[in-house]
């Protein structure tokens, strides 16, 4: 006799199949063995209701989180991508908001996908939106604490970034494109939105006052923030950033004061921890 757990394991696998189970001989045999059916619906037709709900629910959730990716692809290619994604990367979290965690990498791995770099940029941006949307709230860094840091302590100090901050290098102007695509969708426009040429930029995606902002940063400042968010002490972070941005350490140092002022005003950094 099949235990409940065995039955559920097998059923869960059928419910993630991308095609109509009524046309699936193995599913039909499973359903006829284990499910009741009735005078109106065969056992496999009953099972198919849940398979369809699986795809409707998860497709809806991905549409909500990735309107830019969907807008670039168009309906048919979007459906194909999402069904392949759900079949390959099953949802594992109780939280539907985490459904798209693997989508940027999945798109990056799709050989032959047209406009792949643009799609990866867009998927990454939209995933960053999801992450910052519900990131923990943190109070801004107290200026008095910042002012109290002794000069000699800065080199070994570590700065704690706001959990609502994500950094992204983009190859295409995806922020503006997403705005256009969402507007076209909302206005139910039939003409396609023109897709842009590359325009690289360094972005800070940051939630402030419950809104998500896209701040364009200079490359050295972006690299410094990257190193800081990776946990490097400030002295080493400056060296890393200068090397990555291809600028002299002294040149980077000249920008520090202005960047720190901007970051403090925007709330990128929420605490400063002094080294031992």
């Amino acid at each position, binding site marked *: *006799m*099949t*235990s*409940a757990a065995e*039955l*559920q*394991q097998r059923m*869960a*696998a059928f*419910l*993630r199949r991308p095609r109509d189970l009524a046309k699936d001989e193995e599913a039909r045999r499973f359903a006829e*063995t*284990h*499910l*009741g*059916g*009735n*005078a*109106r*619906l065969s056992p496999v*037709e*009953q099972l198919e*209701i*849940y398979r*369809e*709900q*699986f795809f409707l*629910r998860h497709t*809806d*959730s991905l549409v*909500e*989180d990735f309107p830019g990716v969907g807008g670039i692809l168009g309906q048919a290619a979007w459906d194909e991508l999402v069904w392949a994604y759900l079949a390959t990367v*099953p*949802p*594992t*979290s*109780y*939280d*539907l*908001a985490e459904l798209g965690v693997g989508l940027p990498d999945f798109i990056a791995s799709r050989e032959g996908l047209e406009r792949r770099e643009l799609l990866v940029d867009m998927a990454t941006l*939209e995933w960053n*939106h*999801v992450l*910052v*949307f*519900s*990131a*923990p*709230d943190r109070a801004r860094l107290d200026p008095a604490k910042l002012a109290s840091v002794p000069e000699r302590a800065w080199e070994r100090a570590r700065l704690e970034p706001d*959990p*609502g901050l994500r950094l992204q290098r983009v190859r295409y102007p995806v*922020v503006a494109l997403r*705005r256009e695509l*969402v507007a076209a969708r909302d206005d139910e426009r039939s003409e396609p939105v023109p897709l842009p040429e590359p325009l690289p930029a360094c972005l800070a995606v940051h939630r402030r*006052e*419950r*809104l*998500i*902002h*896209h701040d364009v940063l200079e490359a050295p400042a972006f690299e410094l923030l990257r190193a800081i968010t990776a946990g490097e002490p400030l002295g080493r972070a400056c060296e890393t950033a200068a090397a990555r941005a291809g600028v002299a350490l002294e040149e980077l140092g000249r920008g520090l004061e202005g960047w720190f002022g901007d970051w403090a005003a925007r709330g990128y950094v929420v605490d400063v921890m002094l080294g031992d």
Partner: protein
Amino acid sequence: MTAARLGLPDLGVGVGLRVPHYRRLFAERPPLDFVEIISENFMGAGGRPRYHLERALETYPVVQHGVSLGIGGPDEPSATYLARLRELAALTKSPWVSDHFCWCGAGGAHLHDLLPLPFTPELVRTVADRARRIEDALGVPFALENASSYLTYKGSVLAEWEFIAEIAERANIGLLFDVNNVFVTAYNHDLDPVEFVRRVPHERIVQIHLAGHKNLGTHIIDTHDGHVIEPVWDLYRMTIERTGPVSTLIEWDDQIPEVEVLLAEAERAKAERDRALTARAAGISTLDAETLQAVRDAARAPAGTTTARSHGTRQGGPRESERGARTADSTEAAE
């Protein structure tokens, strides 16, 4: 003898808290006895969801309802999930926390659905044991809801009401009784909804759900996208006549209407509830034999119906989220 509602409070009539209504509910504070939140939408640490939860807590009593526990699944409930649920319950002061008699996934995959359980003694033991431990872990009374279903198992040896009653008794937990789900399940599986209402342990019902659904002929999908239908109002009064006053909630999760429509549905629930309580106090019923037969007839799928398939009809919530990212580039307001 078990106290009515397990001794838990009657909160009156409330509605499911949904994103399109936030602005007006929080600004205008229309009279509602309570609101219900979907626990999973607020289990994150911060951001907009936490902001809106705080506004809700300032405005109304809040009850928590979950959709992702999957208590009857092959895997034990996640300790991380339970810890977050406990933290949220401490914040909301929800008088009870509920989820569903269902399973949600297997083999590491979470299907985000309320999948029906085989009604077997094996699962009675499993679910009752887990329910006891979950209530201990949460530190607040725990209740489970009868889910709507679209399939049955050949291995089921108990009626659904027997399965529910046995688990509730063994685990000493509450029931969230969804009257619309009774109707949907009765229609989909050729059951008698009146018998279903009669046979559940009424003193354990701590909350009631009401919602609309979509009838596709061969089966009903529990869409939560419209008004409660008349036979479900009848079943609701029948339930209240047996339970006495029980917190009642209108769920509306898709095709969400203006606040006024939702509030009118809640007013209707209050009126139906008052009518049933008046009849109960007088020792009579609002439902005569003819009405009960009409309810049974409404829950009977017409013979020869062959319009199979859902054709894209999406099962209703409670599944909404408020994730649609609002950006500073957009013209949308912050709330």
